[in-house]
């Protein structure tokens, strides 16, 4: 085994860190919080120039054939500075979905994402289906799509949406322009921009149906595995920033005439945060490899284990960071509370802790039987 990042990945991570240091501070975040459109033209252009849009996609569509770990390192750095640019939601999510479909039509759309010719979001969830991505409540009847998608992370700026829907008993992926739909945009817990989309008997022509059946199921499952790994990468960035800030605070903040880090209970809290952080990092490395596997059982097991572990320990680190900071930790002017929101948010996307532990339990049963 080998846990070193390749030279290439290290370079990607270093570049991301430098880029964000120069272009994204806490003040940038606070401004972005109040903006309705999260695709900042100048940063979006810079990211394109850095090659991030094509990073994990095939060369045939203008990509660089990079790995999940490359993207994970970018997302980790983005999490560490609370960056809200919807890179994952508008590039990686739809991009991987289209790549996994692999049809000519799908690759053409992917190409236009890589070239930044358009903004496509993924609409995988709705209220009633919950976390079940393979059985959305929407359906296509005749040639009409009806129903509602919720929690679509579109950054406030997508113009088309990749939507799952049932056509008969087949999972189907359609690409729908948002113009004709009723879109309600709102703010997410982490400050990102989400949308509910109402498809009110939208006419679907053959052109808009990208694929159906097992191929879509596989593409959606594999894409969500990527998104789960990237949730964890983002959480790791945040956890690591929280730990570092809390350690620094404990060294400098004085109460009762001494730095609070001199109190044994605070020391042990910090040690717990540190040891958990170590293990979170190990799990991130693990999932960054395994979330890309073709073996469904191993992939899903790894993703569920990591998501469950992060939902537990990542959130705990954020809670502890607030507790050690005391009053200042619950204010909006300090970044600590914002990392806490990010952590809660990511602990709930693509399955929360309880859901993933259930899934592991169910997978275990399958394994034992198989």
């Amino acid at each position, binding site marked *: 085994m080998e846990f070193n990042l390749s030279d290439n990945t290290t370079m990607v991570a270093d570049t991301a860190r430098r880029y964000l240091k120069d272009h994204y501070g806490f003040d940038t975040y606070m401004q972005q919080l109040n903006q309705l459109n999260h695709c900042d033209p100048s940063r979006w252009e810079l990211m394109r120039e850095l090659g991030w849009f094509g990073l994990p996609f095939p060369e045939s569509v203008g990509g660089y054939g990079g790995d999940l770990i490359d993207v994970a390192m970018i997302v980790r750095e983005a999490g560490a500075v609370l960056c809200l640019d919807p890179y994952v939601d508008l590039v990686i999510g739809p991009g991987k979905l289209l790549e996994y479909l692999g049809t000519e039509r799908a690759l053409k759309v992917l190409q236009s994402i890589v070239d930044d010719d358009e903004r496509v979001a993924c609409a995988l*969830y709705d*209220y*009633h*289906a*919950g*976390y*079940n991505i393979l059985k959305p409540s929407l359906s296509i009847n005749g040639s009409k799509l009806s129903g*509602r998608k*919720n*929690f679509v992370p579109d950054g406030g700026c997508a113009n088309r949406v990749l939507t799952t829907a049932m056509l008969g008993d087949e999972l189907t992926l359609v690409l729908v322009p948002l113009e004709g739909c009723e879109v*309600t945009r*709102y*703010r*997410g*817990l982490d*400050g990102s921009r*989400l949308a*509910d989309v*109402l498809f009110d008997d939208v006419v679907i022509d053959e052109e808009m149906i990208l694929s159906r059946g097992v191929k879509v199921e596989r593409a959606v499952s594999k894409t969500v595995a990527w998104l789960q790994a990237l949730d964890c990468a983002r959480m790791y960035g945040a956890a690591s920033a929280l730990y570092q800030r809390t350690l620094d605070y404990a060294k400098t903040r*004085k*109460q*009762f*005439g001494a730095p609070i880090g001199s109190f044994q*209970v*605070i020391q042990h809290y910090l040690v717990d945060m540190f040891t958990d952080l170590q293990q979170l990092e190990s799990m991130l490395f693990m999932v960054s490899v395994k979330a890309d596997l073709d073996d469904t059982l191993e992939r899903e097991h790894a993703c569920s284990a990591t998501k469950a572990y992060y939902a537990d320990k990542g*959130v705990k680190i954020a*809670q502890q960071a*607030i*507790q050690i900071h*005391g*009053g200042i*930790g*619950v*204010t*909006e*002017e300090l970044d600590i*509370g*914002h990392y*806490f*929101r990010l952590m*809660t*948010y990511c*602990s*709930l*996307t693509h399955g*929360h*802790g*309880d*859901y993933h*532990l*259930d*899934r592991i339990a*169910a997978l275990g049963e399958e394994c034992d039987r198989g």
Partner: protein
Amino acid sequence: MNLQFTQEEQEFQKTIRAWMRENIPEEISRISALGEMPEKSQQQQWEKRLGKQGWLAVTWPEQYGGPGWTATQRYLFDLERAMAGAPPVSPFGVAMVGPVIYTFGSAEQKERWLPGIASGETLWCQGYSEPNAGSDLASLKTRAERKRDHYLVNGQKIWTTQAHWADMMFCLVRTDPDAKKQQGISFLLIDMNTPGIEVRPIYTIDGHHHLNEVYFTDVKVPLDNLVGKEGMGWTIAKFLLTHERTTIAGVADSHYALARMKMAIDEAPYYIDKQQARRRVAELEVELMALEYTNFRTVAATDEGRPFGPESSGLKIKGTELQQKMSQAMVEMGGLMSLVWDSSSAVGNESFNHSPRRYNFLRACTIYGGSNEIQKNVLAKMLLGL
């Protein structure tokens, strides 16, 4: 050993329940169901309604406007209040400065301040913490210099909940800068409209404005506004910490949360196996039961006139921990719905929702009023006697 409420108590509970149903503004219970908190006007309207009924200052002796209830009745009242979806009464007037005034205050002070608290007319806030005096409260620096006919107050308070709502602040100030830490601190009542007071908002991680910084620049406070004697401030502050509060554990509001959670199980599609969600609720239910029966014991002891010792510090620790756990569980049961910042913004979100903003705000409950770590230090000192 008798775990039944008496016939009278059950009747009392029914009366309260019926009254609540009729008198709680619909808007208020709707807000509670979303896990949100009311605006000032809503809160005050509600407290005045209670005040008019004589049910606001429920812990006070009758002579000052209390309803003359037993601790058990107060518990039942609080339970019915919470289950009906009304917010707790703001503690600063009724639970904090009120008892200080009727215990340590002069006849004039009682007459002047108590009626406004009992009616819900006057809103109060608490000026304790300062930027460098948080857990280490005794190192506070706000100075009140005694002049001929007033105190001249200079300094800064922080984390002042509802200072922007309040008419009055009760405040710990340093009257003798030469005395040792805990000594030289006095307890002063300050009119928030006095010139020289500036209130600046602190927004908290729920995105709301509950807290403030309060700056005092040459603020003149009448000498009559000193409660007790100069240098008694620390004694009064300690009195307040140990003062009986049968609602300190938050049992009533946790019952409300539990009921909401049970409703959520069937609605929420975020579990592969509903039994897992029920099981999770069961764990919280058991913890609440343990807290509740411990709380009952303090209630019963209060009614029998027995003091209840370190047990009540335990209630604060356990109660706040449980509130946080329940809130976290609700946010998780909400699944994807909890991704939404503003519960009213998303379509179709009218059904069960515990606002994640509430969950954010509840992180503060193990910090304010003496962090749980400080509570444990104090309790350890009592237990170990070291």
